[in-house]
């Protein structure tokens, strides 16, 4: 049974991907058990920049959209009445579809009394699976890699996130890199995780968005802990918030320009800066102690 740790944040750019990638590398290096990194930030997936995986498979993510047989259509309008998304509408005795608005619920197909609607797949993104290797000198520990990518101009990330989650490997430890925010995409990414690691910064923006993210994971009934990134760049308000709310801070990662430089090149912090490797080792220990053990 695998343990899924979602790395989320509320605010963007706090270091979700850095934390998820570096934790995956540290865990893989320990070699105790296989590890997976899963990128659910399908609008802007970045994990591949650092892990440079070899992609073995690439599948198109499809949403079923209606195809109307105009010779059979009686223009009764039942399809447009059931559709909540204005993806199929009756205009002047003709049924028009707007595939990019369709959520693929199948309602119109069900509602059509004459069977004039069939469903046809429409590609909205891809899911790629493969392996990433950590630095050679550590002996080629492998990380199972999965990422989803939403096609540019598509509005709905959730079908791609669902497709990513169907391919989550059955490794004992899985890190899910969630999208920023707290809307449907973030919720879909974290909702069945065993633990949510919330990455924040010690700034007013970081704190404001952390509080929203905490409300979200609480409403979902999930266990959560906090990582304060760029510690020292701001003040102590995040710390006092966590204390007042009874949320554990699992790590405080110091603000350091060298980390920003390694990140900018697409490098892995724990491979280039040994003192940060120790920080991430401690974070992994704290995480493993905090994650509820499954029955």
């Amino acid at each position, binding site marked *: 049974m695998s343990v899924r740790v979602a790395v989320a*944040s*509320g*605010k*963007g*750019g*706090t270091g979700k*991907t850095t934390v998820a990638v570096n934790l995956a590398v540290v865990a893989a290096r320990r070699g105790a058990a296989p590890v997976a990194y899963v990128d659910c930030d399908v*609008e*802007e997936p*970045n994990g591949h*920049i650092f892990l440079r995986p070899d992609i073995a498979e690439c599948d198109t993510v499809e949403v079923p959209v209606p195809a109307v047989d105009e010779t059979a259509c009686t223009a009764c309008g039942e399809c447009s009445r*059931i559709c*909540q*998304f204005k993806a199929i509408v009756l205009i002047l005795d003709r049924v028009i579809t707007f595939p990019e608005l369709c*959520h*693929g*619920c*199948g*309602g119109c197909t*069900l*509602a059509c009394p004459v069977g004039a609607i069939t469903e046809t797949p429409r590609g909205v993104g891809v899911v790629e699976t493969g392996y990433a290797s950590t630095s050679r000198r550590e002996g080629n520990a492998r990380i199972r890699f999965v990422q989803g990518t*939403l096609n*540019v*101009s*598509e*509005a*709905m*990330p*959730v079908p791609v996130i669902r497709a990513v989650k169907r391919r989550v490997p059955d490794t004992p430890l899985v890190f899910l890199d969630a*999208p*920023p*925010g*707290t*809307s*449907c*995409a*973030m*919720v879909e990414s974290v*909702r069945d995780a065993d633990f949510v690691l919330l990455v924040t910064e010690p*700034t*007013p*923006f970081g704190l*404001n*968005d952390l509080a*929203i993210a905490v*409300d*979200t994971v609480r*409403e*979902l*009934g999930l266990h959560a802990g906090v990582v304060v990134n760029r510690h020292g*760049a*701001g*003040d102590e308000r995040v710390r006092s918030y966590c204390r007042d709310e009874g949320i554990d801070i699992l790590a405080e990662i110091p603000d350091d*320009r060298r980390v*920003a*430089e390694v*990140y*900018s*090149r*697409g490098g892995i912090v724990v491979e280039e800066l040994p003192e940060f490797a120790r920080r991430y080792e401690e974070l992994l220990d704290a995480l493993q102690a905090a994650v509820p053990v499954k029955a």
Partner: protein
Amino acid sequence: MEYVPPARSVGHGRLYLKELVVISGKGGTGKTSLLASFAALAGRAVTADCDVDAADLHLVLTPVVERTTKFSGGKQARIDPERCTGCGLCEEHCRYGAIHRHEAERIPDDGPRSDGMQRNGSAQPGRYVYAVDGFACEGCGVCTYICPAGAVIFAEEVSGEWFVSRTRFGPMVHAKLRPGAENSGKLVTAVRNEARRIAGEQDHDLVLVDGSPGIGCPVIASIAGADTVLVVTEPTKSGIHDLERVIELARHFDIPAVIAVNKADINEDMTEAISAYAGNEGITMAGRIRYDTDVTRAQMEGRTVVEISDGPAAADIRAIWGRIHGAIRESNEREQEEA
């Protein structure tokens, strides 16, 4: 809610309303800090915070809320356990895995968005009923359609609210989305429409829009029909990767884009690579902003960096604003001549 295109000519025919949207693809590149500084420098503009699920602009502009409006992103299904016969047709037809069977006694009473009715459903041992997980429900209504017992209640769900406020730099429209809510794009559209309406009513010629990260529904709703998008990026591999996707998005919707590089001196080579990319793509560089701890200090003080600092970042932001504002003025003059 339908998108209302920006008024090209409002007021007495002398003012030409322009809408500038700041986006980034990647989160945390400095959109909000930059937009807040623009609001300070413009002096007279309507600001709109369209990052509705992690809004931060209010922390710097400290708005005084004058009007609050409830927002519904769509309908949501609920099952009345009294009427549910346990047939399971809803679960079978739900494509989002949002409906599950529970023992009538054990309907999750603290489950997502379960309401009083579900909690108090009469308990009958051994009887099974179905319940909707509000977080997974997309609001398609198929369960309502298929239920033979009429047990599914399908009603508008309040999923957020939006505010019209006063700030020290002019009117502001902003919003708060309920966690996990669907259809944030619709809320973004409501915020933008209101900002434009206020601009027209009060003779402001500029709307400054703070967008959200990503390329999905709220971002599309933020940029559709805008005059210009300013993409704020950072000189990192991730920043460039996300910049390219968001530029492709702006192109798809035919919105002119300009680029600003924040923390440009963190990696000069990468900043050069971004300039080269912009050159190849025929995109104007609005400028570079040097790394400066005054940006964080301003945030800590709840002010804009141009209000508290004469340091490198504030100077760079003033220069960028000068270029953008100059371009807006020229464009307005051109349109006036054409008119």
